[in-house]
């Protein structure tokens, strides 16, 4: 009897300790700094709605977890065969009342979860008022953003004013991708032939990371994106900058030689530079230098990375549709000089 009580106390202590440790670990993990792509720190109303919905569900799941695991551990310890010739157990074949109980109680809990879930599904499917329209086209392996009402086309880095919703039309160029900025909204697949819609709003200025989440081939891991939530003024300035045509490089500069190579090496066949070329295969480069990253937001925007990229695109980004043009070092530096002028 005494050992039984001691064991129970010991068990309870162990369970408490275990639960505490698990909670502490979760808390540490959940608040881990430097997790810029986390779903746990919503920065917009859509993501916040989701978070408000799921947080209590996590709590309910946590309670059920402690209940079930606790019972499993306690039963194994308490009812273990102590080898003491204690009488055989009573042969209990079942108990209808109990079984009906643990059918109906979980069902009731699930009804309580299902009702707000379904309400939220419909709430999130509503189109927002006064949105900015953006067409997001997913390519292997980069993102194209077209603001049809603003006349802006850019790639990989999405800009949006704070507290104004984006109404996003998702267009697939090749295979299925999935567009996701966890801090702002849940993901929506980009299905070729079926233009999905989603909306999202940023409620705090900042830079939020996202990524393609549907396996889309070799460089699925390298299809990333950034979302810049800006003050209305900053956003307006950005839009105006994007609408300008590219400035021609000064005569005789390496950049001008780069511009010539841009046409001669066929870059212009795939890339648009307003006033220079109208290629539609790769990203629009007119204001390349206003972006902080390139190649599916894989590399930071700097001359070194651009040089490495031009040397052998598929070598640094597996499967890249931009081929290795076998450029010489001199050609690369001229091209980079030209790209540096695309501000």
């Amino acid at each position, binding site marked *: 009897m005494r050992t039984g009580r001691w064991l129970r106390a010991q068990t309870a202590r162990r369970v408490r300790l275990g639960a505490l440790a698990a909670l502490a670990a979760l808390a540490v993990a959940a608040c881990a700094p430097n997790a810029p792509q986390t*779903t746990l720190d919503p920065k917009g109303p859509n993501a916040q709605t989701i978070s408000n919905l799921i947080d209590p569900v996590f709590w309910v799941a946590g309670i059920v977890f402690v209940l*079930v695991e606790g019972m499993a551990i306690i039963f194994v310890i308490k009812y273990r065969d102590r080898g003491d010739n204690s009488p055989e*157990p*009573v042969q209990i074949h079942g108990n209808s009342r109990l079984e009906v109980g643990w059918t109906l109680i979980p069902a009731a809990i699930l009804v309580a*979860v299902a009702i707000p879930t379904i309400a939220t599904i419909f709430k999130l499917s509503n189109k927002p008022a006064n949105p900015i329209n953006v067409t997001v086209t997913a390519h292997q392996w980069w993102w194209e953003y077209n603001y049809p009402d603003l006349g802006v086309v850019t790639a990989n880095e999405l800009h949006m004013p704070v507290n104004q919703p984006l109404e996003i039309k998702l267009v697939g160029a*090749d295979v299925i991708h999935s567009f996701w900025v966890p801090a702002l*909204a849940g993901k929506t697949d980009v299905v070729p032939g079926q233009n999905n819609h989603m909306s999202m709003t940023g409620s705090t200025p900042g830079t939020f990371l996202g990524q393609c989440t*549907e396996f889309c081939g070799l460089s699925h891991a390298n299809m990333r994106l950034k979302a810049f939530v800006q003050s209305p003024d900053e956003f307006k300035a950005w839009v105006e900058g994007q609408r300008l045509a590219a400035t021609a490089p000064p005569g005789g500069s390496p950049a001008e030689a780069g511009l010539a190579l841009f046409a001669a090496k066929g870059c212009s066949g795939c890339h648009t530079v307003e006033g220079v070329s109208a290629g539609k295969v790769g990203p629009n480069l007119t204001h390349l230098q206003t972006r902080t990253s390139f190649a599916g937001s894989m590399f930071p925007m700097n001359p070194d990375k651009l040089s490495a990229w031009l040397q052998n695109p598929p070598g640094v980004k597996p499967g890249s549709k931009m081929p290795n043009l076998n450029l010489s070092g001199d050609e690369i530096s001229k091209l980079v000089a030209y790209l540096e002028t695309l501000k």
Partner: protein
Amino acid sequence: MTIVTDPPVRPSLVPPDEPIRLLRRPTGYTKGIWGWVTTVDHKKIGIMYGVAAFIFFLLGGLEALLLRIQLGSPENTFLSADTYNQVFTMHGTTMIFLFVMPLSAAFANYMIPIQIGARDVAFPRLNAFGFWVFLVGGLFMYSSFILGGAPNGGWFGYAPNTLKLYSPGHNIDFWVFGLQILGIASLTGAVNLIVTAINMRAPGMSLFRMPIFTWMSLVAQFLLLFAIPVITVALFLLMFDRTFGANFFNAQAGSDPLLWQHLFWLFGHPEVYILILPAMGIVSEVIPVFSRKPLFGYQVMVFSGIAIGFMGWGVWAHHMFATGLGPVATSAFSASTMFIAVPTGVKIFNWLATMWRGKIRITSPMLFAVGFVAMFTIGGLSGVTHGVVPADTQQTDTYYVVAHFHYVLFGGSVFGLFSGIYYWYPKVVGHMLSDKLGKWQFWLFIIGFNMTFGPFHILGLQGMPRRIYTYPSHRGWDFWNFFATVGSFVIAVGVLLFIYNVWTSRKNPKVGFDPWDARTLEWSIPSPPPEYNFAEIPVVTARDDLWHRKYTEDDKGRSILRQPVDAPAEAETEAVVRAAVDDDGPPGDGDGAGPNGASANGAGGGAGASDDGDTHDGDSHDGDEERHEPHIHMPSPSYWPAVTSVGLAVICYGMIYRVWFVAILGGLWVLGGLYAWSLEPATAPEEPELDAEPSTDLEPVGSGPAGAGSGSGGAD
């Protein structure tokens, strides 16, 4: 007590002197490798399923370690993107189609007949065919590694990424054709086991006396029967797109790529229950035995299993919540996804209630079973959070989902299957595995498992997507990825320990027929069982029949050992063995279920017992040979299941490389094999006298339902 007294006789379907004798059947005396290749014994087939599945488990595990090494640190270059994609595709495909499914099939094959008191399955040659087709399909798929690259489109193979335009190599072709071959294996196995469980139960074994593992396997076989055709259709459409330029999934041509997803998941979700139900059955056998109590709420357990089987068909679109189905459809699938948790929860509470007030022997199988309950619960709870659709749009295709299904399929299926391995090993092999090493393995597994997959929850919620071969270091994912990689090696040590356990336990002492003091019929026959399983077909009088032969309940409901008068099982079996050893002639009862000479060659079972397997109706000459069994009618071995199965791979190689005459040759190979199969003589050629007296070619029904499964030629 198990005498069948009324032996109505019926002629076997094909007389042994059938004139169309294409080729001689292999004899039951075939030894060594050919004994295994030609066997139609459900137990040997079960062992082969198990061994092959385990080898594929090692391959899939090796692939998992490669994945974990690659992801152990950010920007790692251990694997290239292409290799990573091949390895993760093959890891998933292997673990699902080549490990959990065939290992479940191994248990079902081995255990269903001996749990229901049958001598073999309904269609023994079809059973062998199923195994060989599975093996051929697995080897075919793995041959891709040396033929230019393994499948790399994920185990889900989403179109249009898997179309020729985006995946021009043969990688995906191996996946498409390999899965088609494996589908044939699963379908034949399902048909066979369904018929076996329904038609071949021993007298008195009503459906509600059927052991729960057999029940859950039966439900899983029904799911297979209906799910495999769906994936077959999907794979055919994809094959036509890839091979003949059709446009079933080509969005540019106006098709809807989501058609693939609907078809795939309409198969894929029932598939999840195909993977978990047999493990649930195992756990439902193990927990009562080691708690020394009957399964709490047997009927509810059966019905919840069936309910899961039905509801499993109504939840597939929860894999597609981000695809833009619209709020009405997502709401419906959200609700169905949540409510499938109800029958699952009932099972968990019933397992807990089975342990409640039991007398729990903490052995390796019991630890794995409790581990199943504990880990599967976590997977179930995270599953409910997927049903919360808005949250799922944050979680889907992240490591949170990877965590979820590993808690279900590793914490669930794999723990359940290892519980079954430790539980039934003595029955199959005749000696125990080391319980001490088994417990070490359990602790390594449960620690390594939680170290690996627990952090996946965190990584997923921190936004780490699935199927990425690399990640940058400033995402906050470095630590938990490294931690998970360490955990995966802890699991690997556990697997090595299991192999060591199997190896060193070779010399463990032989065990009796009932080493665990268990409840169901398979423990009433020798370990390992003789080829014919039951010397006498048992007459079943209760659920947990063996338990009721051994024990009764006192007025308080406590189990008490019966008086010896009531023939405890041990004495009974000894009597059988003795009788068998002493048997020089026809058994006295002459009921066709007589004891036999099998045990004369020692422990019987295994390869030895197959010597005795081919006796067909040899009433008149049972004295001729010591090994001869007078009345037990067992099917003869056959070359044709194995031979026919190889033709399927020939067809597929021909199709992949577009060498049409090879494909046609493979087709003729299969066709020829099937003809030879149906026309081969019903019996082995070892008994020429049989031909001389066709009038006595009567099948004693004393062999009970098993008679239907005998090698009566066209029966299968």
